[in-house]
């Protein structure tokens, strides 16, 4: 493989990491604050994709603007879901069977709602940006992947800002560390959880919109991403946003480069193997490893 090929592949992996990070952030927020594994994540990705598609198809709204609009809309949707369903779950410091079943059921409902509204046709968003490529000498950069990468970086940066510069962010971090201690320190647990759930859904919806710029989709959309999101957040640490970025990068690099030596058919096995290794060797993820190292130095 030439140096240019290697560089192109590295860039492809970085851009793929952006896609993976974008789709995993929402799940991490929800788990971090509420200890709920959002199995409906794929359903929300799918709704986000259709939301951006409809804006583009009906009113020619640029998909990028659609993604921005998806944030408030899906935030409200998340708040609504929390009020209607999630708050009825018993509070727990561990994921409960009730929450898993509820959110799995919600995923099925969203999927079938998708079939009811949009039918089973494959949809895709085709803009002049979709197939355009930027050339930097011998290096090629697919414009739309670059946009998604930028979106993912912006989402992670915004999240870091919110978490470290606002009262709400401090409350979220407090709940991530210890729910009861947070309550004793005066954190409104219920309110913070509601807003955090709304944010998680907002990020998932916006990520779905970004994915719609890359892939064709149907109401069944999202399942392969759900598995990868699991791998990323387990690898990164279930409550760490920097860990999500690192996990996404590792998975993307491994998937992209390993199939240069392995047959491409083994690509899904790479994600599964990484999940097993992460659970066995790094149960607290990269964030846990990082925290341990910091404690010892």
């Amino acid at each position, binding site marked *: *493989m030439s140096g240019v*090929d290697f560089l192109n*592949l590295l860039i*492809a992996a970085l851009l793929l990491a952006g896609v993976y990070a974008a789709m995993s952030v929402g799940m991490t927020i929800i788990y971090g604050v509420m200890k709920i594994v959002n199995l409906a994540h794929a359903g929300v990705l799918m709704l986000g994709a259709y939301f951006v598609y409809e804006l583009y198809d009906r009113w020619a709204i640029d998909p990028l603007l659609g993604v921005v609009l998806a944030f408030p809309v899906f935030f409200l949707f998340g708040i609504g879901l929390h009020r209607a369903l999630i708050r009825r779950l018993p509070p727990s410091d561990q994921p409960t069977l009730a929450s898993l079943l509820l959110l799995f059921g919600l995923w099925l409902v969203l999927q079938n709602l998708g079939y009811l509204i949009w039918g089973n046709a494959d949809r895709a968003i085709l803009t002049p940006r979709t197939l355009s490529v930027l050339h930097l000498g011998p290096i090629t950069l697919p414009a739309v992947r670059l946009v998604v990468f930028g979106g993912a970086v912006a989402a992670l940066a915004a999240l870091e800002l919110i978490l470290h510069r606002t009262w709400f962010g401090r409350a979220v971090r407090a709940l991530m560390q210890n729910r009861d201690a947070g309550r004793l320190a005066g954190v409104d647990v219920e309110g913070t959880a509601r807003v955090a759930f709304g944010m998680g859904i907002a990020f998932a919806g916006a990520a779905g919109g970004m994915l719609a710029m890359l892939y*064709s989709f149907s109401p*069944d959309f999202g399942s392969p991403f759900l598995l990868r999101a699991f791998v990323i957040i387990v690898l990164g640490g279930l409550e760490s946003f920097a860990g999500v970025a690192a996990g996404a990068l590792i998975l993307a690099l491994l998937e992209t480069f390993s*199939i240069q030596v392995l047959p*491409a*058919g083994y690509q899904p096995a790479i994600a599964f193997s990484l999940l097993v290794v992460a659970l066995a060797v790094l149960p607290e993820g990269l964030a846990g490893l990082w925290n341990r190292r910091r404690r010892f130095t």
Partner: protein
Amino acid sequence: MSRPTRRPVKKLTCILIASALAAGVAASLLAQADSASIAVGVVLPISGREAKPGQYQREGVELAIHEINQAGGIFVKKLGKKVPVREVFYDDGSDQAKSSGLVERAMTADGVIAVLGGYSTALGEAESVMPDRYQTPWITTGAAASTIFSRGYQWIFGTLSPTDLLGFTTAEFLGGLVDRGKLHKGLKLALALENTDHGVDYEKGIEKWNHAHPGYFTVVFSEKFDLGSPDFSGLLQKVKTAHADIFLADAHLQDYITMHRQYVQTGMYHQMISYGARGPEADARKALGDATNYIFAGIWWSDKLPYPQVKQFVTRYKAFTGHAPDSWYPATAYDAMRALAVAIERAGSLDKTAIRDQLRTVELKDSLLPGQVLRFGKNGQISTAFVIVQNQPGNRVEIVFPKDAATGDAIAPSPKPH
């Protein structure tokens, strides 16, 4: 200690006996219903990843049933009358386990005389174990892998020609372009194949033609990929590194769209490019626009085939569904139902063995498929020719091979994108 358990056991026995009696009554009612209509099971995916082709196939079957019933039904000699066909439809959600379970249900609980379905090799494979177990004819309308038909099953039939023939015809078409001077001899092929029997068969067909025609092409890269992958950049990089002249992939619709988007985004170019049986679909055009131009596909049927029955079918299909047939999907399903109807009529009864025996010798002489005659081979699968179509500028899809069915000339090599 054993006494307290006796009463529940008695109750359970009573419930079982009552259930058996109820089942008997239901079966006799079903038998009575049998003379009023002929139940045909249809198990196809109209949700999940194969929903779109599954829906088109369902429409093909339903159009055939509609036409049969409009003519009064199928004449069953033993009953001395025409009997309408009743469809028992199940959506398998593109799920293998569900698919075989639903075929089993149709063959046992619903008392159908035959089952049609099994779109895609993976779902067809799962369904194919049921027909011999329940001695009920099964016609797959959308599974082509030869492995399904090489296990010695006696109750299975298929209206898709085998995938190795698709690979063979693809290579034959390219070889023809070499003979005509449109492509050079000795070109290098790169193959990217879905990780299923479909992909294996496709490769076998290409190898078979290459073996018989040495010097035309050399396969310099061949690798399988997983269905539904979100990223093909690594695979495409390997294809790029292979420096092939022709890129042949065997892919499902979603993978075709994702892979070709990335293919274009990475600025790749090959003299000829194909995604197996995928290429002319309207959804692909919507998702890829002009980037689908010059892609060629080997398909089982085209609405441009110059047969009068094809023209009539297209008109009736449009009137029935409100849209034009997309690719080959409805045609093989339509012919499967018509072949079954002919077999039932020739059997003269609703006896499944008699129907199976008639299916083995049935000849549908106004078939929509290339060659116009549908007959099942010894293994149950048909082997009609494939047609090669090419997407051309201006949203045109032309049949470019074989010559006697061609509606246009192949553009080869594909022009380099600007």
